[in-house]
């Protein structure tokens, strides 16, 4: 097994620095350049969603859960795409999928996505995406 060497990861550090820099710059620019009208709603920590003031034990609207679960399910289903994406088109020694099967498996993936789409349309038809 290869010994662990931090040096191999230096691109990540560069990336990290870049990201942090961008975020800080963007926030600073917005603060400096943008107009500042302070309405009560904008004063709140979260602008959308729940009213954060009050007892933590109050009831949540069930629709939040619904959206969350919908997101979770579709999000997790995409998990199946990762192995395919990572493995299907490797060449040489690392190839796990015989080249002849690439086409058929691609069709399978399409069918999988179509099934997800059916689920999506089903949710849509059921009115899940309408807030009220």
């Amino acid at each position, binding site marked *: 097994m290869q010994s662990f060497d931090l040096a191999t990861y230096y691109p990540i550090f560069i990336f990290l620095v870049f990201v942090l820099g961008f975020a800080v710059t963007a926030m600073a620019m917005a603060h400096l350049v943008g107009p500042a009208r302070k309405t009560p709603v904008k004063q709140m920590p979260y602008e959308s969603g729940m009213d954060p003031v009050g007892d933590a034990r109050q009831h949540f609207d069930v629709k939040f859960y619904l959206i969350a679960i919908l997101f979770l399910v579709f999000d997790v289903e995409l998990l*199946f795409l990762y*192995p395919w994406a990572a493995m299907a088109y490797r060449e040489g020694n690392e190839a796990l999928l015989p080249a002849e099967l690439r086409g058929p498996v691609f069709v399978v993936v399409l069918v999988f996505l179509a099934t997800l789409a059916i689920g999506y349309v089903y949710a849509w038809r059921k009115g899940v995406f309408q807030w009220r």
Partner: protein
Amino acid sequence: MTPITLNHYLALGAVLFVCGVLCMATKRNAIGVLMGVELVLNGANINFVAFAYYLRDPQGNAVFLVEGQVFALFVIVLAAAEAAIALAIVLNFYNNHLTVDVDTAEELKG
């Protein structure tokens, strides 16, 4: 420092399993019970992934066993699907019982 071996992972899997089982049997809260179940599932997942990583072929060479990984993926996805259904069931349960404590459900017994 001792290297981490398969046994460590198996021990972790077993511990997760036992934690999950205990959680399942002791929690009154439906969500808690569900968490216990997730622990059990993930204990199994740890086993799968660990086996997939550590198992050797008969000649002792490291081999990449894809089944364990795939199995783990499927378990994760199914756990998500089950969580979705759990939410529906638990919410309904809440609507009827005004609590998510499952020990209030004892209409059906005997």
